[in-house]
């Protein structure tokens, strides 16, 4: 039987994959992909725990996480559009005026 632990560990590993993506990506669009992975990883964990406790809260949480992810995409892409218009690139190395 697959226990809760398996799901949680899978979730943890996927989360870390997403994290690696966030850390290594320089292209902002690709970076946003990686954040989606992290949110999805969390959802797996919520669904699994919800199933383990027979409690609906986890599924609710996952549901709202999906809603948040969708909203973030909208705002994030809006930002990317304006950045692309102003800078002509999505490479985050270009946005380093402010520092120190």
């Amino acid at each position, binding site marked *: 039987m697959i226990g*809760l632990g398996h799901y*949680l560990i899978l*979730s943890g590993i996927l*989360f870390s994959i*997403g*994290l690696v993506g*966030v850390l290594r990506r320089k292209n*902002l669009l690709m*970076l*946003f992909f990686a*954040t989606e992975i*992290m*949110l999805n990883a*969390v959802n797996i*964990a*919520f669904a699994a*725990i919800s199933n383990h*406790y027979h*409690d609906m*809260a*986890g599924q*609710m*949480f996952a549901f*709202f*996480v999906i*809603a*948040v992810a969708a*909203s*973030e995409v909208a*705002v*994030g892409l*809006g*930002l*990317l559009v*304006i*950045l692309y218009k*102003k*800078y002509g690139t999505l490479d*985050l190395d270009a*946005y380093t*005026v*402010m*520092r*120190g």
Partner: protein
Amino acid sequence: MLEPISVSLESLNLITLSPMLIAIVGALLILVIDLFKDTLDKTLYVMLTMLILFIDIGATYSLNINERGFFDLLLADGLSVVSQLIILLASLFFVPLALTASNKRFHEYAYPEYFALFLFMVAGFQFMVSTDNLILIFVGLETASLSLYTLIAMHNTRGAHEAAVKYFTMGALAAGFFLMGSVAIYALTGSVELYEIAKILQSQGADESALMLPMMGGVVLMLVAVGFKVSLFPFHMWTPDVYEGSSAPMAGYMSIVPKLAMVVVAMRIFGIYINLDIEAVSYLIIIIAVITMTLSNMMALVQKDVKRMLAYSSISHAGFVMAALALGTTKANSSIFLYYAMFMVTNLGAFAMLWISQHKKKHFDERYDHPFEKFSGMISVSPMAAVIMGIFMLSLAGVPPFSLFWGKLYLISSVVDFAVATAETKYIVLAILMVLNSAIAAYYYLKLVVYMFLKAPLASDTVVYANQSRPLNVVIGVLAMVTITSIFYVQPLLEFITYLVSSSGY
């Protein structure tokens, strides 16, 4: 087939929702007005927003303490009321700063949506502080954050875009950590409601070392998210850049409201562990707080730009507050709110002064808008402005009798009290470190005072006033008065806060 469920209206306790509802309805109203007639002057929206905030303050103030509503999801306890009041007051001071000198409006104010988004953001923060359900905390946090990212970007300068995207991306990562922390807590206890979690942890015995691992894991992950929003080292990296990039009032607003909302959440979450006497959690927070206040102070010292200096200083203030949060006593928690109330008037005032001097075209060098040199000799160019700015700086430095002095005094005294009560030297060390840090901080605030009062003035003197207008003068005047006269109201204010905080059991 399922039984149809019926819910009585009384059991919902609708009144607990009223403050947020007012903000949301107000925002929708603004959107609708804009839809019907899009040639209205922006001043109208400013006034409308202020009116809504005003009604909101009334609704918040008239809430009964310690009531729950909507299936126990909403919680109107003392923490929520006092933090909402501070948030709303800060917003009330923030909004009229849009009324810069006529024909000198900035980009964001060309949108009626700006005010709608602002009210949505306020509602998001209100939700965040008036619930102890992790789901609603998260949704409220994201509503507020997404609005905030947009509000920053709408300033529409290169810096603003850079700031928004930096804030957004780090915020997304922080959200991931918050969720992972929630997973850890949920997995451990099977609940997402903090009062249930507290009960379960209590009954299971917190000392069981087997539980320590997931528990501390959850705390650490949560602390990353909290640390991001409150700007603790090393999650503070966005702060100076975002403050520099966004408009000055927005930077001032960000140094108070989002932080306060997150501090309340942190108080609720970490309060559970601290109440269970899990010392590791207190230590963890204290260590990170001390690192934060020390390093940010040192970085603030070497800044060449006043706005960036204030950004680092606000990081250091956050460290101060977190140190008190780790104690978990009523006095410490009350002192946090007093601190933020006092910090609000002073810091908003300081940023508003920067706002007055913001110039669309004239930049002092290619990088900074507000370098120290800009303010040199301000005393002879515009004595009044220099004196007011000087008062704000002295207040930030904690000089009596200005407002933040009381905040610092009470906060440090809560640490000292705790040290005496527990008879542990490490808390005395903490108090000494805090005092030392305030002393260092005084250095860079006074640096600006030295520039303003002792250096020779610049050749061109027009820049200091660029955005001055009557509404701005009024706001700054009120903030300055509140800062100066703090000695007269600090006592009743403190009693009010202490009453609210203690009545909700913190």
